[in-house]
């Protein structure tokens, strides 16, 4: 169990995070520059917060009130970097062994070799990191991190430097590591699919604050804030005006009523929630101004004369696609609308 409640003044904003993580992996999802990496660094102890508390499994790692700040060496927290941070002047084996300081000198090599084997890096023991591929470096960094037998695992954008295929493979491998790992883990990411694959819990960070923190399924069902909706990949985010128990989507000329409208500033409408028929609760007419083909679906870009917002609508390939520049009626249902507020 990890409890974090810290503040730290940064150049653009003040980091002010407060969360708890149980033994399920937690994703910190946010746009770049939202303070995710700094949060990890503070937990690992390589950066010092201005004030607050960090408690791991009942042990105080940092408490400004009591003047406690354990050095990173004493925290036993593994941190995996975006650029892997393998020591360039050491071979793979030496890199992994450098993580083995906790165990007796004689057992280190066997322990390191076992991890190297587990991550499929046999034969590379005497190779220097710059001769390893991105995927191999990533696995080597995972092996080195686990060699230190950490109580908590932190991943800083672990796959962002890899291509799609490798990304999938390694995130599979990381998912295995997390499953067999008996402790908390935090994964920092800006990729919602990655966060969803690895972590049952997702916290959304905006400008140094956690604005939404819930389990992954309900986050994708109801993202709550504009940024969260963007991060889960919601294509249409439209500003609204609020009335009493209703919101007015002026861009579509639609009023949604009988809802709690406090604080709502925008609605999100996933592209696949819009259908090309009259059957939905809310209807609108729009001109198809662009047709984008992708392998599994077709995305229509729609526009209305009176709107400066383009609307994206994605349809399965099986449906009959309207002609370019035709004016068509589209509809959607209330249950598919995300009602969103501002994060701060």
């Amino acid at each position, binding site marked *: 169990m990890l409890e974090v409640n810290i503040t730290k003044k940064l150049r653009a904003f003040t980091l002010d995070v407060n969360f708890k993580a149980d033994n399920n992996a937690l994703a910190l999802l946010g746009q770049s520059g939202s303070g995710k990496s700094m949060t990890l*660094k503070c937990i*690992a*102890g*390589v950066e010092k917060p201005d004030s607050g508390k960090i408690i791991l499994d009942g042990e105080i790692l940092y408490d400004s009130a009591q003047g406690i700040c354990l*050095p*990173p*060496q004493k*925290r*036993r*927290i*593994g*941190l995996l*970097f975006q*650029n892997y*941070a*393998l*020591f*360039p*002047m050491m071979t793979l084996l030496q890199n992994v062994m*450098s*993580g083995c*300081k*906790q165990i007796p000198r004689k057992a280190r090599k066997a322990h390191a070799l076992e991890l190297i084997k587990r991550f499929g890096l046999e034969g590379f023991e005497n190779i*220097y990191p*710059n001769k390893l591929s991105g995927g191999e470096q990533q696995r080597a960094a995972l092996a*080195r*991190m686990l*060699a*230190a037998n*950490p109580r908590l695992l932190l991943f800083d954008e672990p796959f962002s430097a890899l291509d799609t295929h490798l990304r999938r493979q390694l995130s599979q491998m990381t998912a295995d590591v997390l499953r067999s790992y008996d402790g908390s883990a935090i994964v920092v990411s800006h990729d919602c699919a990655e966060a969803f694959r690895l972590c049952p819990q997702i916290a959304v960070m905006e400008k140094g604050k956690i604005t939404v923190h819930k389990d992954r399924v309900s986050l994708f069902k109801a993202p709550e804030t504009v940024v969260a909706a963007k991060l889960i990949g919601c294509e249409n985010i439209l500003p609204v005006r609020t009335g009493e128990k209703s919101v007015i989507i002026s861009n579509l000329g639609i009023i949604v009523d009988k809802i709690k409208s406090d604080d709502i500033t925008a609605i999100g409408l996933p592209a696949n929630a819009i259908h090309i028929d009259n059957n939905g609760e809310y209807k609108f007419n729009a001109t198809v101004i662009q047709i984008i083909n992708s392998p599994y679906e077709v995305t229509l870009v729609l526009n209305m004369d009176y709107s400066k917002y383009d609307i994206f609508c994605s349809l399965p390939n099986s449906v009959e696609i309207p002609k370019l520049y035709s004016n068509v009626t589209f509809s959607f249902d209330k249950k598919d609308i995300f009602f969103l507020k501002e994060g701060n």
Partner: protein
Amino acid sequence: MDLFPLYNSLRIALISTLITFFLGIFAAYYIAKAPRLLKGVLDCVLTLPMVLPPTVVGFFLLIIISPNGIIGKYLFEWYNLRITMTWYAAILSTSVVAFPLMYRTARGAFESFDKNLLYAGQTLGLSNTYIFWKIIMPTCKQGILAGVVLSFARGLGEYGATSMVAGYTPNRTATISTTVYQLWRESNDALAYKWVLINLFISLSVLLAVNLLEKNHKRGN
């Protein structure tokens, strides 16, 4: 031909390189981490000997170490120790003049060092001393070696400040550079040429070494 100046120049340059190595790295390491304002001020002060005329450096040194200087006074009174006009006074002058070269190249190397390597080491439980000697230093090796070679070359060629604090006494304080000057004054061109050639040879070797180091550095290893 009396080779004392070569021997003297080499020992002065070697010892002062050793001193600037540790002082330069120490200063570079801590100043690279300092807040911006402090960094700017210290950087100016520490680089000053590089841009000041060596005679000005020599002047300052004499104010400090001459028998009636700020520190020299006490050394002379208490221990009857006279530092000026000895060969080891030249160590002091060459160290001061060569220090900025070591300091600046080492600082450049430390600043381009990937901080994540430091963080990775710390989270793996490695001590800061271990990280410094086994991870930071080997990674910054090229930059630091270039600094060592440059400050050695500077130490070897130092004339202005050295001639002020150590003077020219044959077989006691004579260095290559002060010898060349002396020989020229005595119109002993033949011997002066020999020393000039020796000096050229050493300087070219040093430059070659620096170029090789930089080439390796660019190759990334």
